[in-house]
């Protein structure tokens, strides 16, 4: 059946890469997020802003904090939510990404939040849906809302981002968080140094506007030490990015001795205590890891708000949405 017409989403706004946002856009979203902080302090933590809107979260890859914070963010804004995990869905039966997205789009969601293991998956689906698409992580490419919540956390802790020096430590090669953060921090006027073993720093990373060091001495000059997760698979036979976790921890682990007072420590989670980060560091006053998780909620509320109700939204689209006659008759009444 060919019931779904070709999509014309040229003017609809999406958040696929942090580079979709200019500095002013990022500042606006961070400001909106700050405004939502007061809602979080109320007894009734909910506002009616997105009542009647539908937010679908589609996770083809495991996630704890991102999926739960998007879902909660949508609920706090009074949107209806549908959460799909790939396991147990028709994706398990071999349905293609296109078919899955077109099927979900038949319910006319306003926003699709997608996580997928493949680079470019979030951008691809914009061609197959009328919804705004938010990338919640596409392979090793981008994770823009993580970047926004990290920027929010840094701004809240240090008052601003312009001129900050952030060291990103660890497996940059396989990290979408690092890619988004390098570009986002550069847009906001920060200086970025990548630190890690040469096997885990991409060739030509300097082209992204970051400095590169293979020595932990480079942490000395940083205001923020941003630690990336070190995955066990990197030690697998044939991969051999590093010889062992213990050698990695010994040379590139973030330990109290490698930090100086007043430096902030951040980590996108989940952390491996004793590998990329020493337990004392994770639990120290310098750590902003819990703040990051909390920031995730208000920042994702701000992103949803910005796409659906914010100043940049494309005005006529909601009014022009056409309701298929099939849906009208099936519902037995006129759909407003």
């Amino acid at each position, binding site marked *: 059946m060919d019931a779904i017409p070709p999509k014309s989403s040229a003017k609809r706004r999406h958040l696929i890469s942090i580079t979709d946002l200019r500095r002013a856009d990022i500042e606006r979203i961070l400001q909106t997020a700050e405004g939502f902080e007061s809602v979080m302090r109320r007894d009734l933590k909910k506002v009616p802003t997105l009542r009647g809107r539908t937010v679908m979260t589609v996770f083809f890859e495991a996630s704890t904090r991102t999926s739960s914070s998007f879902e909660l963010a949508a609920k706090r804004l009074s949107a209806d939510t549908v959460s799909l995990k790939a396991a147990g869905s028709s994706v398990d039966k071999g349905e*293609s*990404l*296109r078919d899955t997205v077109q099927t979900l789009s038949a319910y006319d969601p306003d926003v699709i939040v997608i996580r*997928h293991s*493949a*680079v*470019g*998956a979030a*951008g*691809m689906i914009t061609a197959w849906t009328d919804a705004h698409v938010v990338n919640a992580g*596409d*392979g*090793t*490419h*981008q994770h823009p809302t993580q970047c926004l919540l990290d920027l929010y956390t840094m701004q809240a802790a240090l008052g601003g981002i312009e001129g900050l020096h952030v060291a990103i430590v660890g497996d940059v090669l*396989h990290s*979408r968080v690092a*890619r988004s953060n390098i*570009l986002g921090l550069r847009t906001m006027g920060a200086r970025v140094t990548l630190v890690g073993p040469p096997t885990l720093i*991409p*060739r*030509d*990373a300097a*082209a*992204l506007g970051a400095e590169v060091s293979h020595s932990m001495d480079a942490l000395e000059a940083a205001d923020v030490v941003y630690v990336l997760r070190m995955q066990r698979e990197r030690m697998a036979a044939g991969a051999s990015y590093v010889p062992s976790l213990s050698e990695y921890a010994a040379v590139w682990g973030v330990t109290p001795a490698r930090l100086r007072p007043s430096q902030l420590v951040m980590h996108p989670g989940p952390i491996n205590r004793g590998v990329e980060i020493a337990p004392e560091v994770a639990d120290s006053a310098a750590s902003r890891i819990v703040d990051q998780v909390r920031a995730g909620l208000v920042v994702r509320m701000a992103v949803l708000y910005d796409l659906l109700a914010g100043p940049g939204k494309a005005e006529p689209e909601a009014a022009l949405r056409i309701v298929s006659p099939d849906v009208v008759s099936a519902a037995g009444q006129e759909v407003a």
Partner: protein
Amino acid sequence: MDRLSCAPAPPADLLIAGARVVDPGSGLDGAALDVRIHEGVIAEIGPDLPRTEIETIDAEGLVVLPGLVDPHVHLRTPGDEDEEDVASGTRAAAAGGFTAILAMPNTRPVVDTPVVLGGLVERAGREAVIPTGFMAAITAGQDGERLAEMVALAEAGAVAFSDDGRPVERAAILRRAFQYASVTGLRLTLHEEDLSLSGGADMHEGAVSAELGLRGYPSIAESVMVGRDLAIARYEGAPMHVCHVSAAESVAEIRRARELGVEVTAEVTPHHLCLTDEHVRSLDAGRAKMSPPLRSATDRAALIEALADGTLDCIGTDHAPHRGHEKEQPFAQAPNGVIGLETAFSAIYTHLVEPGLVPLATIVERMSAGPAAAFGLRRPAVRKGERADLCLWDLAASWPVQPPYASRSQNCAFAGQTLRARCHLTIAAGAVAHRLIEAVH
């Protein structure tokens, strides 16, 4: 005679009037001439030939070139005829001005026995609209372990041997293949890739892969294998052809080997000459994913220089059709390859000739005489007494690259671009194989 086959077709009788003829091999560099073709043979070339009863094409402002020869085409037959078959692939070739193509043997089944090869030769004799030759595998099943029956395959009409799509990984097997193929007099055509370095990666390793997070396929994955294979060829005194050279380091290896006397020919694709890894930013696998990958601007500059100086003596499209739904997947999951027959000359004209990077005459040599010489094929020539193998172009035309294509597939690297140079007429083996232009009477 060369080892190519095509379907019988009525020989052409027509007069191409007033076109500029560019055929460096025949000493023609753009003088406006009439070309009279009688019974498929170039009967006469000269100014203001008499317009007798013959069908006349007013070609003023157009350009006649010798027919183009593509040494690297995937016809997907047998096994994947829904992607391409002999008829559709040769029609696509004719639409791009080609008058001869060579098809690669990585089909299903692989062309590694005289039976499969014989079936293809027969099929080309029924369906091919231009002369088509077939390569046979170097190793049985292209498994890289056991030599294919090269003598039997040569007798059955193989034009050359290739495991294209895969490298011959083991140096000892390649050495044996060089030794054994010498009996047939046919050339090994090598896909150069160190799989342990490329690791099934998605795109060129460099600044763009660093940003996109796609797995990097470093240029050295190609060049170390080119270096290895040239060393073996030199030791064995064997000729070899390098497929789709993409990296500056590979060019340096080929240049050095030729200076040392190795009989090496090498090809480059239109997409590697015209595009760089920046093209991958679209994350559209249909246009930007192939092996070897689009490389850096530095690599592209080295390829263009090597094309101009003759280090790279052939242009080959590596025309690689794929089903739409397979290409319409996230970049890493989509298969490698782009179609290129219909856009090859136009893309090169647009991106290399018009900007003044390489002269037209050089391009004509690399797309016609170069590949013909490398594979011992008839050299198309716009010359009195020759069989008509030529193409007629409107170089000033602009046309958008978009479906429908003559090819059965749509994964074109240049889709969405507006290119110069449109092929109006192709005469292959003396017969009209492609035609847009009307006769005057």
